């Protein structure tokens, strides 16, 4: 529950982060993975539970650099 709430919070804030970076630096980066990591994390947590799902999401986050 908490993990999902955090993800939702991130998704709500993400557009603002994008815009701030775009305004200050003139560019932002695109997501490397599709679906985005936060959507992926949501799905994995639903399917595998918080612990396993979070671990999977973390693994994917680490592969994005």
């Amino acid at each position: 529950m908490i993990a999902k709430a955090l993800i939702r919070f991130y998704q709500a804030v993400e557009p603002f982060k994008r815009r701030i970076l775009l305004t200050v630096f003139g560019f932002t980066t695109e997501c490397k993975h599709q679906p985005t990591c936060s959507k992926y994390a949501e799905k994995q947590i639903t399917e595998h539970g918080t612990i396993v799902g979070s671990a999977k999401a973390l693994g994917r986050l680490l592969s994005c650099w």
Partner: protein
Amino acid sequence: MSFLIEQFIQLLVFLNGIFGSLGWAIIGFTVLVRAVLLPLTVSSIKAQKQLRDLQPELKKLNKKHGKDKQALQAAQLQLYQKYNVNPLAGCLPQLVQIFLLIVLYRALLDFLNGGLVSDEALQFGWLNLAQPDPTYALPIIAAVTQLLLSLMIAPGAETPDLVSNKSKDKQIKEANEKEENTAEMAASMQQQMLYIMPLMTGFIAARFPSGLALYWVIATLFSLGQQYYISGWGGLTSYYQRLVSRFK
């Protein structure tokens, strides 16, 4: 981090010495930072524009490969290579950006509050750069420029289209309906974002020292110029036309 902040403050002090005015120093500082980032910016915005143009192709690929994610990624990569698209992707650049953002923010704030410059130098037009703007002119400019930027990067009135609605196939009709729904939802989300961000910008700019607001406004203007140079007025034209037609 504090080392970097110190360097930026030194740069600001140096620019202040050259321009003899803090306001011009901040403007020069903004332009300098953006000029250094220009090559990165141009290539990234170009890639974004190409991506937007390739959206229909990408959708086709999505349909074709559906669940086979590896094949989908390979096909996407091929498409990108074919059109020579090189989007700056991944979170490392963003982490660097966020880090730099904090450094810039701290440097400007410390510089403005640090008593490094005289009170006269802090005066810039009607503004005391260490204080919020009492006339709210700068926050309003910040909000308006941000709104223009919003409209320019908004995709405008493009509607997704796959197969014509005249088709008698029930499945296609349903698929089209679904697509319209999601497109509408995404559009309304963007619509909200369109106005929320400028409003928030205005409010925040009204609370912060006007030196920071000045930095923000110059950076926004710079972004506007860049956006225009690379992709023209973008969504601004369609919003302008809608506005005009409403008053006709």
